[in-house]
């Protein structure tokens, strides 16, 4: 996607994002905040799925763990947002660094299975380690942090703009990375690892780095989430979240970076609407999954489809 052609669209989008919150109720502002957070989550997953070609079903681990860590830091150590964020990112990078070492030699469905297993084990740990994580009940009562500058993010509207700011900056950073030599190399790896190796690229190093980056950006979205939600539980690092993320990427178009944003918007919006009149959201999600894979495997924006 060329930036020049999309520039007017992006400007329109940003304008809308700036104006709409003043025109709608706080319920919708909250919804938009959620969409932004999960858009970042989906974008980070797109680095792995769409750009390197590694389908991860364990990405929720990089969302939930920093959420828990940030929550714990804010409750017990300091209410400073940046400190909580730093702690969350460190945690996510440590886990990413470790998991990365284990998964890097896998590909395709095998990679998917390993990431699934690793993330589920982490989920199980969170579930059982009740003394720290609160187990099934999670951690609640998390208050909005302080920024250290005279801007209070306690309100729905103010937190929305804070999230909008950070997500925009992060998305721009991801865009730069994707268009850089490093980003192009990732695409090459997705297309043919052997060719990249024979050209002289250290494919393993690239994959590992991409894994860490994806983890870090997901970590940011996790921390933003926990302060939005005021509550974190094992649902925020489980397989359902990973699956939703993957669906957002595929639905929007893997490898386009913008597609996942669209996918996130659609899925979050649908979930909120459908949950108001039926308990069968899981069933709907499953059906959407099957329909998308069968009929729109390249997503709305026509991303690539790996065999």
């Amino acid at each position, binding site marked *: 996607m060329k930036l020049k052609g999309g520039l007017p669209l992006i400007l329109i989008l940003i304008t809308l994002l700036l104006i709409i919150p003043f025109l709608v109720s706080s319920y919708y502002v909250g919804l938009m905040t959620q969409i932004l957070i999960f858009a970042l989550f989906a974008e980070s997953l797109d680095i792995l799925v769409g750009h390197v070609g590694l389908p991860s079903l364990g990405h929720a681990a990089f969302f939930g763990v920093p959420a828990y860590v940030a929550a714990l830091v804010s409750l017990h150590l300091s209410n400073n947002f940046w400190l909580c964020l730093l702690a969350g990112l460190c945690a996510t990078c440590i886990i990413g660094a470790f998991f990365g070492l284990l998964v890097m030699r896998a590909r395709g469905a095998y990679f998917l299975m390993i990431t699934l297993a690793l993330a589920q084990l982490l989920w199980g740990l969170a579930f059982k380690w009740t003394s720290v994580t609160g187990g099934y009940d999670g951690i609640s009562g998390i208050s909005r942090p302080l920024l250290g500058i005279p801007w209070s993010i306690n309100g729905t509207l103010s937190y929305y703009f804070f999230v909008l700011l950070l997500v925009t900056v992060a998305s721009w950073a991801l865009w730069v990375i994707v268009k*850089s030599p490093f980003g192009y190399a990732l*695409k090459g790896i997705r*297309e043919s690892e052997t060719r990249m190796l*024979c050209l002289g*690229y250290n494919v393993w190093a690239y994959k590992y780095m991409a894994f860490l980056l994806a983890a870090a950006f997901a970590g940011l979205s996790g921390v933003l989430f926990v302060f939005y939600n005021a509550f974190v539980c094992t649902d925020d690092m489980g397989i359902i979240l990973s699956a939703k993320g993957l669906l957002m990427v595929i639905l929007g178009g893997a490898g386009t970076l913008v597609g996942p944003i669209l996918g996130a918007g659609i899925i979050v919006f649908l979930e909120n609407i459908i949950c108001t009149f039926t308990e069968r959201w899981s069933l709907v999600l499953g059906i959407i999954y099957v329909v998308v894979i069968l009929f729109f495997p390249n997503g709305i924006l026509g991303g690539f489809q790996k065999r």
Partner: protein
Amino acid sequence: MTVLRLENLVKSFGGIDAVNRVSLQIEAGDRHAILGPNGAGKTTLFNLISGIYTCTSGRITLFDQDVSAYPVHRRAALGLSRTFQISNLFFGLTLFENILLSVQAREACKFSLHRRLTSYKYLNDRVESYLKRWNLGNKRDDVVANLSHGEQRQLEIIMALATNPRFLLLDEPTAGLSTADTAMMAKFLKEIERDITILLIEHDMAVAFEVANYITVMHYGRIIADGSPEEIRKNSQVLEIYFGED
């Protein structure tokens, strides 16, 4: 200087020796061809040299360095480049992007995260010069999957050359090409600079004899003959393999 030295190379798959005690030496500037019927072990040999396979036993020396244990990308970094018998291109990317990835491969900027690739003018210029030389300028934004077979084979070679190699492995460069394209390819191969050493696998004997100054013939994983094109032409064993068994 000796570009490549293979010493008693063996590669076994289960019970079969695809490559059986092959020894070979290639000097700088050589145009060395490997001939042999299907299954002779030629592509396996290439995979061993480039590092895709590890040898069961034996030693590989590249530019006076023992690379037997080196991973693929490290050997490539020494100046080794190869093409594939079945085009191994970045099919989902455009022609321009394919060559760009090749051109960027030995540059320090390939790890850069913060600048747009399109802003590196010198890289873009190099890609444009390749496109011009091979007359593919009008296809630069075409997705490679949509190019013709001949164009894809050309891209295979461009990709290998764009990394400025010192040693080029060409795996059946004329595979599937028309007679006219084959003649063009042979002409092109003869015109490659002398400071690039070439090792090529060829099925088309005419092309091999035209391009190479030294020929090795393999059969069932072993070398059964090597020498100058004239010597090979007269070698009875070779004649029997190619013509006697029909």
